[in-house]
């Protein structure tokens, strides 16, 4: 029964694979919940910042803040691509890289000199493979990104934007709309797009002055935009991994059913054949 033993081996192997994918699915689910909590916890800060900036912002001030400078032509831009450090997350990283490539292509077609900053082993590995120069490659950001991580990513870019060395900074990451919707997106974080004011404006007492407050808050706003992208990308990664592993587990189940059916059929055929042989032999003896 050579075929039977072979099938048995494959059944074992698929069972083991399914055990692994199911475990990874559960790990990703719990990590995703925690990452999701962080996305939610980051919202009040973003809302408070946007609120105050919106109420202080007016176009007359824009000319005096280098972070609000709107260059007529983007001749040098930086693209920060956020990817994950680990694979087995379906098309997650591939989608992000595709989005980044589309953005780079679009910018370069418009005559912009693009420098690439990549976060995450997967993105770094890809661009090393295709042989594109990467200005900064970081693989030290964990799946619990902190505000300090975001600051370390964007701080030097902000300084270069202020000194007019860069004309724009984009961040490519995944937006975490829900567990099932985590589209890759490209956002421009610099120049700062002032958030639109909504509702009635309060007449605030401002200390020391609107300008001084904006000077302090605009960099926070930029750092927070990057922080939000980091947190959402981590949550999206876990969501993508969970979906990928759930599919793998389901597929392994289907494959097991098929293999078991084939195995049982082979086993039954063999038994039937053996009986036929015995009966044939016995009747030959009686004959």
């Amino acid at each position: 029964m050579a075929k039977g033993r072979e099938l048995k081996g494959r059944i074992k192997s698929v069972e083991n694979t399914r055990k692994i994918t199911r475990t990874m699915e559960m790990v990703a689910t719990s990590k995703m919940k925690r990452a999701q909590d962080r996305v939610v916890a980051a919202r009040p800060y973003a809302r408070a910042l946007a609120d105050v900036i919106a109420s202080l912002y007016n176009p007359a001030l824009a000319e005096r803040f280098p972070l609000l400078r709107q260059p007529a032509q983007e001749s040098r831009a930086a693209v920060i691509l956020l990817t994950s450090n680990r694979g087995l997350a379906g098309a997650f990283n591939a989608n992000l890289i595709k989005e980044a490539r589309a953005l780079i292509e679009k910018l370069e077609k418009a005559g912009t000199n693009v420098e690439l900053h990549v976060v995450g082993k997967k993105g770094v590995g890809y661009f090393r493979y295709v042989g594109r120069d990467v200005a900064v490659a970081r693989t030290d950001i964990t799946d619990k990104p902190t505000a300090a991580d975001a600051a370390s990513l964007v701080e030097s870019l902000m300084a270069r934007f202020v000194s007019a060395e860069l004309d724009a900074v984009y961040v490519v990451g995944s937006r975490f709309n829900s567990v099932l919707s985590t589209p890759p997106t490209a956002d421009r974080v610099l120049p700062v797009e002032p958030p639109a004011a909504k509702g009635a404006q309060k007449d605030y007492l401002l200390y020391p002055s609107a300008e001084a407050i904006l000077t302090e808050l605009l960099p926070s706003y930029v750092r927070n935009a990057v922080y939000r992208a980091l947190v959402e990308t981590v949550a999206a990664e876990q969501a993508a991994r969970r979906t990928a592993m759930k599919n793998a587990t389901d597929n392994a189940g289907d494959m097991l059913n098929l293999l078991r059916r084939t195995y049982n059929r082979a086993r039954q055929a063999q038994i039937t054949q053996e009986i036929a042989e015995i009966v044939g032999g016995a009747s030959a003896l009686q004959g």
Partner: protein
Amino acid sequence: MAAGTGALKVSVISPEATLFEGQAPSVTAPAFDGEVGILPSHAPMVTTLGKGVLRIGDGATFTVEGGFLQVVDDVVRVVTEHAAKA
């Protein structure tokens, strides 16, 4: 929220999490040029913060550095990148 009901709604918010949320009779914060005390019915205000200790009523205290404080209709929001429970 009517002004002058005798309590402030206070929240301390950092990028990572909301560190404090609750009612308090007063708030003392380290503004950029010295301490500032907030009591109910304060006029709407936004001020940047320096480095120091933030006290909420008689209870929680935080060390903060930078960021800003916003008061509007007896709602006090302390928004800062560096805040830790003291």
